[in-house]
């Protein structure tokens, strides 16, 4: 087990290289989590790419203020959510969506159908992606990202009771649709 080369290299890296290495580490560990969350909120792969880029740029710029606590994943998902909602709120986004809808309609596609087309894992995901966003995101945070009710409530800024209620309705809708199909 010859580790000397790698470890010695680490010791002599400068601050910038170190921050890059930390970011690379975060991207390899949590890149998919960030992308998947952005994708489920936006149902658009290109926008998920853009949001993921924004998230990791923000993380890189603010690494020195991050104390590296254990819930890095929760921290990243919260940044992702903020980025998505900032993006949605921006006039640029509205303009972009208008253009995109015009473009999409000419091709008889929607963001939702694109998402459904893009995914191929299973029918459950297809159904989840058609849920209203408030139900969709609690279900994804709980079922896919394995966050606790408490963590989800803190991230969304709602009570734990609200999270439980949304989770219940989300599950119910999915199961009813499944039974109906």
């Amino acid at each position, binding site marked *: *087990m*010859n*580790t000397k080369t*790698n*470890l010695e290299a*680490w*010791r*002599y890296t*400068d*601050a*910038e290289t*170190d921050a*890059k*290495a930390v*970011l*690379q*580490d*975060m*991207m*390899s*560990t949590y*890149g*998919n989590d960030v992308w*998947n969350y952005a*994708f*489920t909120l936006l149902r658009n*792969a290109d926008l*998920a*790419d853009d949001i*993921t*880029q924004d998230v*990791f*740029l923000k993380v*890189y710029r603010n690494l*020195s*203020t*991050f*104390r*590296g*606590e*254990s*819930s*890095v994943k929760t921290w990243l998902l919260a940044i992702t959510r903020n980025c998505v909602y900032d993006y949605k709120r921006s006039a640029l986004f509205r303009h972009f969506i208008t253009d995109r809808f015009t473009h999409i309609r000419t091709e008889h596609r929607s963001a939702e159908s694109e*998402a459904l087309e*893009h*995914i*191929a*894992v*299973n029918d*459950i*995901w297809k159904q*989840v992606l058609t849920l209203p966003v408030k139900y969709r995101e609690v*279900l*994804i945070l709980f*079922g*896919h990202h*394995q966050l606790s009710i408490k963590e989800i409530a803190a991230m969304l800024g709602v009570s734990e009771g609200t999270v439980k209620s949304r989770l219940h309705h989300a*599950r119910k809708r999915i*199961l009813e649709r*499944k039974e109906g199909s």
Partner: protein
Amino acid sequence: MERNNDEKKLLEKLSKGPTSSPGFSKKLESRIEEKIGKENRMRRSWIFLAGRVAVLVVILIFSFNFKLVGDNWNPSPAPEPDNAEPAATGVVEIAEPAPLRDALLLGLRKDERFEKGTSSTYRTLLVAPVAGSLEVAARGSGILLPYKQEFWKIETATRNTEDGRGIMRYLTAYPAEQKESAGPGTGRNRPLPVHDGPLVRSEALTFVGNKYVSVQTTDYTAQEAGSYRVNTVLQLRPADPEQTPELRPNSPTPFVSLSGLLGVKDPVSDVNWAIVRAKGKWIAMAQNGSGGPASSIPYRYAEVPVRLSETVVSHDKLAVPWEDVERLQPGAKDAVSSPDRDLLAVVTDNEIRFYKLRPSPGSDGPERFQPLPEPLLTVPLRKGETLIMAQWATGIYVPQWIDKTRKYLDGND
């Protein structure tokens, strides 16, 4: 019943990603890295330009003052900070360090050998800037660690072994708030009867991190054969705090595998590994060869060629090369530096010295740091004490940590 099964299936299917191929592609990763590289190049250009402008402004101001006062100019020397180096030029003053910003929570372990075995004791210190100067802001016995948004404590407890062969000393973790809320003689504080007997097994910490700990175990019935394991903090919780808080279940000891945590696929042992301190960094060591309790040969260990990820250790990068640490403090055994690169703590055999860091003047390349020659603070160590935890707080967490550690640490170390 069927509905429960459906729910289970729903969660199982959601545990996979929404897309057939990973959405976070290598292409996207490269795009982000490229963007960061571009930003860094632009930032360096601006810093370089701003530096040149600053130097020019300083020269102009000096020239202007000199011209105004002429021969009557007899400047009295400006008072120097206690820890400042003699400045070679006026420009160096631009690089004077900013006030300290970060706080360091240190966990120390001390082993004491006695006739029947070894006993490890722990203490925790918070070194933080308070009212502009660096000091030990809180101290106490045991290990106090930040865990998620709370603080937890790790202590050593004693109980009889299940087979009645003797007693064992084992590690136990619990939320620091819980200890405070439990009254004496109730809940966790209720003492359990421990009978006399030989020490059969003991546990000690080699590392305490974000949510993982590394545990060294010694089996005194097998010629003091030692082994290691890594646990999550939660795995050190007692089985049922409401009933028998000091007892663990008789199930096998839980552990975090080397392959699971660090992705090392081909270890000799996936269980017998440790995280230990080695000259300014945390490293992973794993069993490398046979031996152990069933053999007369002790286990052999080798460093694992992997970098510990952010989820395991945070801010584990020295701001100065180890050679500089040794030059500064001959006989240095270990060192840590702050995330904001403003503080360096150097560990020797009998003390920890805290030095202020400042950017090295005159380096055109990547930013480098150097310690000021005189320490801001010196904390004495007891004989044989070693570092097992170094957690940094930055920004708004610094005052929070000072408050919390003062609340949870007993002040007696």
